[in-house]
């Protein structure tokens, strides 16, 4: 009975796994395809990878990737910084004011992305800022900030208010109390904020699309326009590489967790034996 209970969830997990990874598998397999611009299998080749680093549109793809990564890096770090600083200040406000500020913060979160993109476009027209790199970065920071606040603020709220005061009673200055006591405590929130905003910024198409001119292109935009003229195997190659990199990063980040888990399991087993 117990075994059955465990088999069904496992099968289900596997099925969803296949469902989620099917498109990625297709992309990776066809990155080795020798027939250009199609999804008909023609034989194994590494040409697409070579072309990615030498060819013309391969270079365009790479430069779009670099732009995307740059924008995402700036957007994630600055939105997280802004969110951290303002959440620190916010914790000294009355409950009512806090709720008000947070509610206003979350408005873009529940707006459709498309409408957010349009509203930023209207804003930049209103402010008279020329569309370009600056507006792209600003728009990305702006749509990342609510998510950053969403990840950091709960961590600050969980924090014991007396902690900073205790540190100051023990002789720390106010600055030290923040850097040595509060910041380490909310570090998980800051890290998850950077990760989340980076992910959102890298994958964003709708907001970028309304807030750049033709000179700047992010990777999603580049892929969208490129794929209109047929699928480009270099895109597949790029995806395969990106997937591998992310996969390895994820593994590396989790090696410690796995090791800890194993130790825990060992301990539990030993406990049971005793």
């Amino acid at each position: 009975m117990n075994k059955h209970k465990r088999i069904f969830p496992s099968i289900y997990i596997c099925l969803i796994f296949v469902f989620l990874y099917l498109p990625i598998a297709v992309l990776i397999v066809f990155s080795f395809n020798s027939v250009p611009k199609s999804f008909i299998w023609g034989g194994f080749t590494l040409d697409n990878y070579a072309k990615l680093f030498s060819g013309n549109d391969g270079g365009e793809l790479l430069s779009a990737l670099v732009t995307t990564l740059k924008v995402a890096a700036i957007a994630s770090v600055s939105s997280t910084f802004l969110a951290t600083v303002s959440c620190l200040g916010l914790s000294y406000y009355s409950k009512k004011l806090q709720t008000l500020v947070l509610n206003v913060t979350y408005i873009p979160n529940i707006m459709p992305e498309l409408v957010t993109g349009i509203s930023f476009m209207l804003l930049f027209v209103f402010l008279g800022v020329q569309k370009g790199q600056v507006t792209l970065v600003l728009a990305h920071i702006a749509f990342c900030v609510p998510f950053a606040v969403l990840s950091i603020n709960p961590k600050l709220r969980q924090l014991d208010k007396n902690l900073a005061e205790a540190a100051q009673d023990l002789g720390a200055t106010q600055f030290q109390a923040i850097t040595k006591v509060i910041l380490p405590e909310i570090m998980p929130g800051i890290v998850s904020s950077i990760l989340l905003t980076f992910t959102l910024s890298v994958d964003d198409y709708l907001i970028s699309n309304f807030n750049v001119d033709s000179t700047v292109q992010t990777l999603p935009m580049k892929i969208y326009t490129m794929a209109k003229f047929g699928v480009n195997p270099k895109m597949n190659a790029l995806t395969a590489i990106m997937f591998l990199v992310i996969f390895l990063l994820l593994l590396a980040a989790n090696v410690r967790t796995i090791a800890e888990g194993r130790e825990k399991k060992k301990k539990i087993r030993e406990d049971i034996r005793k």
Partner: protein
Amino acid sequence: MIKKIPPAPSFVLSLQEIPLHMRLAGIAAFLSLAVFFLPSLTLSLFALPRMNVSYFQLLEYGQMSLSILDTRYTLSFAGALPFLLLSLILPLLVLFVVFFYQKLAQKLPGRALSAITAVLMLGNLIALVMVPARLISASVFSAAGIESTDLFFAPQAVGNMMIILLILGLLTASFGTAGIKVHLRMLTFPYLLWLLVFTLLPLFLIVFAAFFVKDSGGYSFTLDGFRTLFVPRVIETRFYGVTLHLQEYFSVFLRSLDYSVWTTLGCLLVAYPLAYALADRAKRLHTSSSLLLMFFILPMWINTMLRTYAWRAFFGQSGVLNNFLLSLHWISDPILFLKLEFLSDFIIKLVLVNDFLPFMLLPIYSVLVKLDENVKQAAHDLGANSRQTFARVVFPLSMPGVISGIQMVFMPSLTFYMIPEIISEGSVTTIGTTVQTLILSESAVQQQAGNVLSLLLLIFVLITMGILKNSDKDQGGGGMIL
């Protein structure tokens, strides 16, 4: 009995030290001094490579030769010299005041010192801004035949940052002058300004743009956008094999709604059991963050557009699935999955579910994994069977996660037009495409109609979310665990 004395409010600094506002002013002055020696000015000229110089270099050289359109010019810095010197001396003076604050405070009241610092910093700020403005004399422009807007010295990123810092320092110094104590709560002030500019102003602009159109004499009120949108033009649409005659934009909206409702439902139906199974596993194996979960989130980091193209390739006429079926001789001709009405509609929803699944999975998982096993046990002990335990205990307790999952899937999928467009190869029009084409069109009326449509969408979403939120009193219960 000795009563414990509560500690003094921690943010007020003791008087023996330099007050916080003076220290902040000192930091700003120091940074401005440091940046004085770093390349912080950019010379930008049309058709010329940019050159970076520091204030110090300007002072050092006194003049600079520059070739504009093959003619060499000597730029004189005489006009800027006083300001250059001021931007070197003033921060030094500020630093002097800050360092010898205690000694000076014996002779002068603290407020006067703050006022002096504020004035010095204001001078510093003006000097820094005046240097680029005074660098190039007008004669160069006329001689070179270029517009004054073509050639300019501007503070570059570092210089701009310095100016912002100086403004902050100036503010704190003025706070000191006015007797306001610098408080940590002020850290939020820039953010309040940010909210005003990047959240409230855009919202207002959307409402404004729906009713007002820019013309020669400014802005004028018009309802043309509404008229364009609610045009009584009826088109034929097919929903699930039924042909309907609906107003043009309403049918588009209905189709998008159909997609997003099914996406939300599909995600919920797929993700809930999955989250349940994963949470169960995590609890059984005693791991707080499971690697397995990370692998369900990983697809999120692969570009959505590419994954969608892969799906198209999978279901395409000469795609993977058809080739597979053909090679097994299960079918004799390739099936046109993407052209058949029912199937293509289903595939669009399938791909949407595939894309949004992690957004539903995460919040539900994070609630379920925190659920105390003893709660289930208690329900069992009180005589509930498994089904009752789930329906009356587990599911209601996981409601916050479900609701934040719905929020994160329903609303974005409503306007996420790329997937339907790519899968149907442009034959399906969704609300997102409509808004986009309207907004990016040339005619002002169409643009206004686009603004009206986005306003209506916004209102629709806000109402839906409002209804959802009312059933979710426990704010942020789902949350993100990314």
